[in-house]
């Protein structure tokens, strides 16, 4: 029997390979639970979890909430709009007030990178990062890797390509360390303005040519262009981006091998990914969403069990 090495899930970079394997194994068990007629277990019935969403979300929020309910935890939901945050309350005060009502775990999304790490230093509850600014989105990274693992059986030696807005992507921030830790090879592609300057120090390579990059990879994770995070123009226009880095069926058909396509959602159809690919058999998009619940159940279960 083993336990996670961390009390919080702030980022993949803090986890060891054994932690990742434990999470994947546990997620597999929970995926079985989710196939049953009664998709619920009583494990976390004495736990209260607060979902603090300081930034908009559909998938992640529903996925976390469902995972919590499937584990029989009590949940409270909080979103920044319509709360006292608008009146000027600080993050720490807000969270301490919620914790004063005897909450055991916090799931938090925040637009500032490092917000969950800051909280972890000041409060006692387990914190799970549900995406912080442009830093990390660990449960997305885990569900991406889990979905690939399920399809290919192993991550070792796999060629994994991340396409698009790497600079603003917290998904890339979690995918890159996770896949490297599990022994995969990672390449990124996208317009040079959207690639972080020292990306190669993470152990990945940059290939500006989309076609060459696709020829290399087994799996391509297509990222969303995050216009909301771009305070200046990084690309001339969406049309131009789509022309050079958009993925469509014609392009994929002209590549010599079958590539598995992933997308963390929400998809800008017709920009980074065309419908003829997003809805095709090559796409793992819906499996990713399905696996999200199992992965989040595993993370919640393992962190709660650590006490």
């Amino acid at each position: 029997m083993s336990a996670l090495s961390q009390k919080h899930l702030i980022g993949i970079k803090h986890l060891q390979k054994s932690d990742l394997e434990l999470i994947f194994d546990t997620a597999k068990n929970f995926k079985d639970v989710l196939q049953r007629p009664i998709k619920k277990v009583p494990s976390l019935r004495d736990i209260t979890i607060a979902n603090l969403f300081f930034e908009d979300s559909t998938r992640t929020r529903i996925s976390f909430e469902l995972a919590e309910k499937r584990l029989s935890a009590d949940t409270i939901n909080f979103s920044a709009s319509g709360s006292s945050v608008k009146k000027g309350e600080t993050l720490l005060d807000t969270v301490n007030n919620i914790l004063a009502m005897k909450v055991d775990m916090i799931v938090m999304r925040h637009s500032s990178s490092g917000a969950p790490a800051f909280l972890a230093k000041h409060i006692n509850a387990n914190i799970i990062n549900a995406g912080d600014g442009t830093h990390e989105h660990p449960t997305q990274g885990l569900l991406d890797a889990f979905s690939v693992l399920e399809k290919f059986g192993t991550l070792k030696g796999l060629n994994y390509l991340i396409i698009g807005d790497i600079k603003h992507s917290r998904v890339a921030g979690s995918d890159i360390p996770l896949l490297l830790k599990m022994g995969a090879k990672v390449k990124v592609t996208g317009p040079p303005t959207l690639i972080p300057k020292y990306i190669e120090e993470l152990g990945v390579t940059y290939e500006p040519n989309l076609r060459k990059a696709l020829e290399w990879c087994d799996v391509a994770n297509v990222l969303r262009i995050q216009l909301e995070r771009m305070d200046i123009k990084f690309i001339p226009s969406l049309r131009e981006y789509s022309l050079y880095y958009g993925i469509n069926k014609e392009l994929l058909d002209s590549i010599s091998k079958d590539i598995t396509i992933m997308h963390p959602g929400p998809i800008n159809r017709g920009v980074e990914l065309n419908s003829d690919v997003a809805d095709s058999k090559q796409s793992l998009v819906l499996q990713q969403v399905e696996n999200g619940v199992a992965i989040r159940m595993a993370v919640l279960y393992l962190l709660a069990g650590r006490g």
Partner: protein
Amino acid sequence: MQKRVLIDSLQFSLTIDRLCHQLIEHYSNFENTAIIGVQPRGTQLAERIVKRLHEIQPDSKFKFGKLDITFYRDDFRQKGKPLTANETAIDFSIENSNVVLVDDVLYTGRTIRSALDAILDFGRPTAVELLVLIDRRMHRNLPIEANYIGKEIDSITTEKVKVEWKETEGKDKVWIINE
């Protein structure tokens, strides 16, 4: 550390045979009956029983499953680390069928309490019975008793009962160990 043999190889196979015959006596051809081993160690016993039942009565019609109870335990968060789960393999409905739960050792009864909870998530069985190899009577925390018992023993709480299997340890044997 002291240890002594509770059941040796010969007794072991006789006990398994007796339990099988008791099951046949009650269920005859096992119509509408499922034998379910509680993971991880009850499964090993269940597999042995299933194998022997097929030898004694080849037309037995029971279904066989494995049940993991990790997520249903009541001592979650009391052990300081999470409990690692095992596979559950019940690919049939147990709605309106008879279930024989199989575990190696019955001690406090808490495992079986969890198993009863877990089994209800697969449907409503007509009846559930319990088969155990060793019953450590006098230590029950809950009002739970077995219907088929390999051997009843009196033990103290500092003692441990260990079941060894031909497949994994080389010999079928049950030990009682005082640490």
